[in-house]
């Protein structure tokens, strides 16, 4: 036989020699290693490929039992295959196992064996061995990658669709655990305590026969560094992947691993919104493993997915909380809130609106807003296109309706009540809608009416006796009822002056009350400031001429036309000019300017008067307040003029302010917004 050189005990015949050459040539040039074993597994013969494939010399392996080279874990399996092969003749058996290379590494081999024990020429088992390490790794990796990708895909889908976070994480772990063939797959959540993170195991998957660790107190709020895994902690916190095996671990780390019966672990940090959130890990309790880059990469992708879904979950939670808060506000607010779609149909109606409008949200939604209510202006029905909601829907404008606009809602059930409201455009569910907030003003209207009556009555009741005082004093002083001497006449005149002044104060007080209660009605007209000022200056001529005060007015051509309430504007100008005349010494000067600023017209009145002391400046617009120097100069002032002017200016949406230096003069400014608001709700 062709191997008789090595094994002389084997029979050989001369006529076989031609065949022997043939076989030798075939076997020894094969890519695979061919081994002939006896029934006990002893190597009888092997081809020289053993050197190329596994690093051994032919001599050092011959006569050794093959099992010496087989991975201990695989020995049983191989032995079983051989035993099976012994029972079956001529039927090849295939087995995959790990064979030790001479350099100590394990090679994965595929062996095909056939029983030639009974063959006289062979008398053994012929085994062809092929190194499939690379193929096996590639296949395995591909399989695992597929499994992992599948797991990730599955998990991603779950994370995006499922409501249960726990179930999703557990599913992800199961997929990963199964795909990688580990014993334990888990997720730890971190909790920052000072500079350190404490980790708690919150989700896990365990393979068959492995116990759960979820309630292991050692894995609750654990500190990796205190545990002796400081290196892991550092790596994790800096976002790196950690691999640890018993074989390569430090003494301290090994103890920890053994304490958990772990041979190898792989930990991947989970980062959510750029902050460490926790980690996902895999333990192998059976084998020491080296994790391939592909696996690590795939697991990292799983960690990224986890991190992203944590972030998403947080966002969802925030949105949900916001929504809950908004819901709570909407349903608890005392104002009625209604959202009306571009088709003029009701989308939302809150409980307060349900109450006031006497309709349930269920009944109202889907109906046209005009079916839910009717709007009255005073007693007349207001045409629908002019309804605030309709205007908002049509033009995207905000509309504000106040009590003095005199609008009423009439419900389907027939209740009519005064309303104030505000509407604004709102993007809602991709639709242009109008949001309406309104309030039932029945009580306020009553109060308002009684206040209005009060103003009327008070003004009448105060003025009647004042009229008597005034007229009687007048008749005394003019001598209509008999001539008085000089002193008597002076006294009568004093009474008349006092009564006149008192009347002015009452008028101002009433006007102030009226403005402050929002009852000032504005009549907007176009005002030519030149004519307007000329008119006022003519009326006030004496105030200035008597003291020889020069008056100049400068009007910016751009402010040639103002839209405003002429009578209110007039009161403000007279008030400020009156002060300028009163508090400017003889021979002084007053300059009136009407300037145009972006969006507004600004009036200013500059005088060379006594000025306002710094200490008095903050209080100058307060009711009844008078600057100390003004009080010394003219003890009789009411202290209401500027308060009144301010109320008026603010009533039309303008501003009033001043600059002043004591003993040098004062400039008062006030503004009129250029686009005088059209009366909303009308």
């Amino acid at each position: 036989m062709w191997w008789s050189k090595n094994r002389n005990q084997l029979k050989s015949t001369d006529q076989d020699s031609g065949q022997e050459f043939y076989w030798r040539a075939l076997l020894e040039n094969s890519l695979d290693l061919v081994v002939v074993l006896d029934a006990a597994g002893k190597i009888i013969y092997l081809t020289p490929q053993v050197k190329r494939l596994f690093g051994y010399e032919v001599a050092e392996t011959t006569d050794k039992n093959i099992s010496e080279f087989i991975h201990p874990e695989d020995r049983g399996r191989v032995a079983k295959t051989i035993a099976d092969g012994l029972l079956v003749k001529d039927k090849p058996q295939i087995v995959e196992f790990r064979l030790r290379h001479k350099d100590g590494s394990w090679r994965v081999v595929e062996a095909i064996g056939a029983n030639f024990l009974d063959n006289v020429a062979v008398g053994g088992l012929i085994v062809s061995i092929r190194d499939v390490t690379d193929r096996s790794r590639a296949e395995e990796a591909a399989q695992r990658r597929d499994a992992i990708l599948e797991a990730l895909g599955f998990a991603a889908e779950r994370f995006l669709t499922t409501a249960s976070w726990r179930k999703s994480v557990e599913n992800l772990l199961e997929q990963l655990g199964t795909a990688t063939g580990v014993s334990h797959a888990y997720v730890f959540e971190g909790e920052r305590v000072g500079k350190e993170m404490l980790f708690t195991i919150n989700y896990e998957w365990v393979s068959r026969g492995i116990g759960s660790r979820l309630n292991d107190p050692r894995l609750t709020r654990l500190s990796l560094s205190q545990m002796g895994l400081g290196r892991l902690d550092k790596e994790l916190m800096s976002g790196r992947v950690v691999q640890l095996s018993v074989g390569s671990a430090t003494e301290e780390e090994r103890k920890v691993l053994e304490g958990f019966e772990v041979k190898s672990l792989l930990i991947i940090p989970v980062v959510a919104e750029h902050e460490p959130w926790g980690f996902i890990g895999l333990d192998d309790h059976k084998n020491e493993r080296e994790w391939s880059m592909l696996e690590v990469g795939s697991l990292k992708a799983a960690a990224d997915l986890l991190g992203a879904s944590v972030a998403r979950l947080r966002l969802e939670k925030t949105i949900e909380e916001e929504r809950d808060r908004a819901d709570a506000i909407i349903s608890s607010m005392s104002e009625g809130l209604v959202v009306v779609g571009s088709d003029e149909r009701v989308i939302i109606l809150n409980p307060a609106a349900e109450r006031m409008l006497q309709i349930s949200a269920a009944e109202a939604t889907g109906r046209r807003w005009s079916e839910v209510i009717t709007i009255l202006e005073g007693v007349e029905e207001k045409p629908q296109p002019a309804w605030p909601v309709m205007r908002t829907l049509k033009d995207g404008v905000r509309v504000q309706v106040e009590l003095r606009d005199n609008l009423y809602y009439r419900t389907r059930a027939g209740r009519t009540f005064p309303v104030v409201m505000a509407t604004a455009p709102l993007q809602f569910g991709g639709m242009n809608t109008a949001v309406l907030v309104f309030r039932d003003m029945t009580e306020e209207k009553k109060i308002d009416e009684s206040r209005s009556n009060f103003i009327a009555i008070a003004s009448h009741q105060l003025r009647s006796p004042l009229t008597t005082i005034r007229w009687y004093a007048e008749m005394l002083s003019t001598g209509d009822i008999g001539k008085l001497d000089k002193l008597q006449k002076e006294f009568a005149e004093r009474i008349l002056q006092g009564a006149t002044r008192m009347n002015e104060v009452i008028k101002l007080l009433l006007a102030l009350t009226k403005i402050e209660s929002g009852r000032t009605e504005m009549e907007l007209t176009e005002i030519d400031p030149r004519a307007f000022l000329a008119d006022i200056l003519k009326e006030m001529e004496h105030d200035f001429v008597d003291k020889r005060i020069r008056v100049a007015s400068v009007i910016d051509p751009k402010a040639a036309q103002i839209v405003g309430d002429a009578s209110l504007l007039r009161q403000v100008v007279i008030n400020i000019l009156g002060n300028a005349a009163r508090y400017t010494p003889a021979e002084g000067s007053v300059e009136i300017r009407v300037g145009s600023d972006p969006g507004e017209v600004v009036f200013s009145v500059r005088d060379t008067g006594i000025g306002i002391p710094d200490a008095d400046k903050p209080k100058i617009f307060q009711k009844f307040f008078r600057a100390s120097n003004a009080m010394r100069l003219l003890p009789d002032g009411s202290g209401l003029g500027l308060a009144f002017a301010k109320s008026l200016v603010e009533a039309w949406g303008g501003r009033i302010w001043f600059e002043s230096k004591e003993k040098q003069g004062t400039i008062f400014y006030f503004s009129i917004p250029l686009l005088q608001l059209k009366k909303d709700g009308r």
Partner: protein
Amino acid sequence: MAGKSKKVLVIEDDELVSRVYGIKLQQEGLEVIMAKDGEEGLQKTMSDKPDLVLLDLMLPNKDGFWYLEEISKKPELKQVPVIVLSNLGQKVDMDKATELGAKDYFVKADSSIGGIVDKIKTYLK
């Protein structure tokens, strides 16, 4: 009817006020008739045919607005100029009175009696 003095009807419940009108108007050579409320005012407007009416608005029983409304319903009385003299200084009241036919409107407390008499004289010319 030359020399015959013109008649002024004063509808005013406040005697202190109507007394002043009385003195001042008589000094101007006018005949003054007094009424204390809207109803009496209407009667005297019909019976006495005044050349001018001075009307207060806040009156007991039938007030000044009522009077104005009644007058406006009677074509023969429509021609009599009515001057409102009231302490109701609100714009709504003034507008309402004017709408109902009042020729002029004075807030008593804001006016001097001399000024009012001057105005009356212009209406009587």
